């Protein structure tokens, strides 16, 4: 474990990517994630890597497509409007079964929206975004240390299952500084890249990376095979953290930095004698359905807290499956809720129980 340093979330993600063996970064600056690009531009030359500022987000994601096809560990980063531009490329990358890591430091939308923190890209990240039957694995860190840990994890998941993995933070997480240490990266695990379009050395048949399959039977077979891998990911990689849920009447569900704000509200509610708890999904896809379903057996009400008009709440409802009411509290457009607002909502719900 290295000595603790004070770092912004954006910088910590970039450093963690480099320590994960990412040697190629293609990006285009946009607030509030520009420090990822800035840090990469400084560090990549020091590790014989490549930092390239593309002419646009569309170009950047297609450079990622090419580098991933060649078997490289590669990453791109952007914020909401830029991520929208990358959706076509992401669909192709998923369709070609290529591993890569995408960072989305979310800001308010739609359109150009604003530059302050938001979580309103949840649907885009977890329900597709691009076209076709595919999923991104979506990881949602809530501290700067977790930015590091999940970045390490993201590259391994991507390579192991041959899927694109997104790390979704918000502007607050990207901009804030906290102490962070960089655990020794485990470089001993190797991943099969025999499919990569690197050089054949005249020793094997050429590999082809492609997402076009004209024959419907062939395409269907491939899509179902990919679906089996998604099932494996759901089985092996789903993660969530829960606090005070054993005896909780009101269970909050919140991810990322808002889970921390919600935690303050939960503690205040407990101090008032209200049995509140918190589930923090760490993977947004796969969503921790089982964890929520288990707690729904004993809880009396759920409350999804988000910086959006209500997106994750649908996944919470599916997981709760009608066992108890699911309520919602949200701020959007770049407004960050304070603990008191959430506490007020908890108190309001407690009066109905």
């Amino acid at each position, binding site marked *: 474990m290295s000595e603790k340093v*004070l770092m912004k979330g954006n910088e910590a993600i970039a450093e963690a990517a480099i320590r994960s063996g990412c040697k190629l970064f293609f990006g285009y600056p946009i*607030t509030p994630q520009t420090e990822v690009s800035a840090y990469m531009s400084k560090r990549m030359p020091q590790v014989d890597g490549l930092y390239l500022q593309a002419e646009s987000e569309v170009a950047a994601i297609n450079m990622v497509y090419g580098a991933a096809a060649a078997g490289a560990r590669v990453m791109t980063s952007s914020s909401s409007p830029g991520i929208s531009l990358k959706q076509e490329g992401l669909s192709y990358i998923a369709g070609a079964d290529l591993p890569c890591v995408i960072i989305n430091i979310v800001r308010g939308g739609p359109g150009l929206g604003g530059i302050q923190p938001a979580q309103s890209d949840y649907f885009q990240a977890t329900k597709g975004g691009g076209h076709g039957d595919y999923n991104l694995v979506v990881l949602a860190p809530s501290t700067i240390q977790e930015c590091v840990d999940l970045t390490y994890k993201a590259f391994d998941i991507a390579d192991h299952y041959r899927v694109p993995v997104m790390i979704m933070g918000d502007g607050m997480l990207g901009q804030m500084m906290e102490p962070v240490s960089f655990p020794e990266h485990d470089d001993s695990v190797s991943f099969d890249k025999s499919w990569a379009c690197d050089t054949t050395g005249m020793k094997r048949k050429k590999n082809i990376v492609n997402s076009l399959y004209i024959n419907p039977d062939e395409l269907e077979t491939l899509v179902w095979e990919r679906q089996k891998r998604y099932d494996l990911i759901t089985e092996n990689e789903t993660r969530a953290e829960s606090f005070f849920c054993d005896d909780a009447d009101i269970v909050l569900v919140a991810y990322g930095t808002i889970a*921390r704000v919600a935690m303050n509200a939960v503690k205040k509610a407990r101090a008032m004698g209200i049995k509140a708890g918190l589930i923090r999904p760490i993977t947004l896809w796969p969503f921790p359905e089982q964890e929520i379903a288990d707690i729904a057996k004993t809880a009396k009400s759920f409350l999804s807290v988000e910086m959006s008009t209500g997106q994750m709440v649908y996944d919470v409802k599916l997981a709760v499956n009608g066992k108890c009411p699911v309520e919602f509290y949200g701020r959007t457009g770049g407004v960050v809720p304070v603990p008191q607002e959430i506490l007020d909502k908890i108190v309001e719900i407690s009066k109905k129980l």
Partner: protein
Amino acid sequence: MQKEFIISGFGGQGILFIGKLLAYTGMKNDYQVSWLPSYGPEMRGGTASCNVIISDDAIGSPLVTEATEVIAMNGPSFVKFEKSVAKGGTLYYDSSLVQPTPTRDDINYVGVEATKLATEMGMGKLANMFLVGKVLKESKVFELDVVFEALKGLVPAKKPELYDLNKKAIEAGANL
């Protein structure tokens, strides 16, 4: 310990650096810390602010809504963040730049002529450190020596002379 700071003023006054110094000192002394800047189209002459939390325990929300200490280095910051001081907390302000208009009787007000005194000592750009000195002395969040030790880690290697200047400014502020 749970100290929650809001530090605010004009861009260029070293507002974010005050926060960084406090957070870094906390980290070096094994506290949990967070540093959250306002970000946006800010520039020299615009507004800048940051929230810093220093705590014994894991930090929940990094947003400070009830500050134990507010440091206001311009008038708009005084007005904007006076309401964000927790009951019994303290609002420190640069009285050479702020015409105080106190509206609360449940918080303390401490004015320091930071910019004026720093300028007189030929250290006009270090008014922020004068205020830090005063805050450290009054709030007792850290001993001065602990802060000086941390300061060594923040001064750019290419400009070691900045260490002595910052230290001198903090000491001068503490002795006011």
